[in-house]
């Protein structure tokens, strides 16, 4: 019985060491921070960069993402 328990605990430890820790729904506070947004804290900076890119390359667009990843667009 003790051998079985030790074996089970060892397996669990081994498996948990190999796994990626799941982020629970209540642990997403850091992901919700403004600094985690795609465009950073200040969307104005992104606008400025886009303006510079347009001036230098005479081209715009291609930096955004359309749709929410559902494949329906």
């Amino acid at each position, binding site marked *: 019985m003790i051998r*079985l*328990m030790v*074996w*089970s*605990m060892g*397996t*669990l430890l081994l*498996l948990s060491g190999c796994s990626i820790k799941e982020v*629970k*729904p*209540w*642990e*997403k*506070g850091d992901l*919700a*921070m403004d600094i985690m947004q795609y465009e950073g804290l200040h969307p104005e900076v992104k606008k400025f960069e886009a303006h510079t890119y347009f001036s230098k390359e005479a081209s715009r667009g291609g930096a955004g993402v359309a749709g929410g990843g559902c494949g329906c667009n």
Partner: protein
Amino acid sequence: MIRKILSTLLLTTLSVMALEQGEILPQPLQTQLKLEKDKLYVIDFFASWCKSCKKELPLIATIHDNNLTEVIGINVDKNREEGEAFVKKFNLKFPIVYDSDQALINTFKPLGFPTLYYIKNGKILKSIVGAIDAIDLQIQKDLKEFK
């Protein structure tokens, strides 16, 4: 070999089990939340970073303010000061439990966030996972069913 595999699976399952509808809260948890006998409680988990909570909490507060039932809010912010500021901002008058170490929510283990539980005599009668529109109307409808 099969026994070993089964015992491993059982141990793994036990560690990820959530409290679900029909289950009884462990007695220490009932004591911690100060749940009284024969009273129906609405227990709402929320956090300051949760945008849906900002919409739902003022509506849930109306349930408490109109004395429809007992409401307990559980704030799961890791930084308690952020939670307290959030509660103050929304002027929540119902009892708030600060779960800064997230021990309570790790016991309930809801599948989504925010989550609301109806609890009577320690038993989970129903849960609402995720935000919904007009939560106050939904709670009023549920309360009629339970009473």
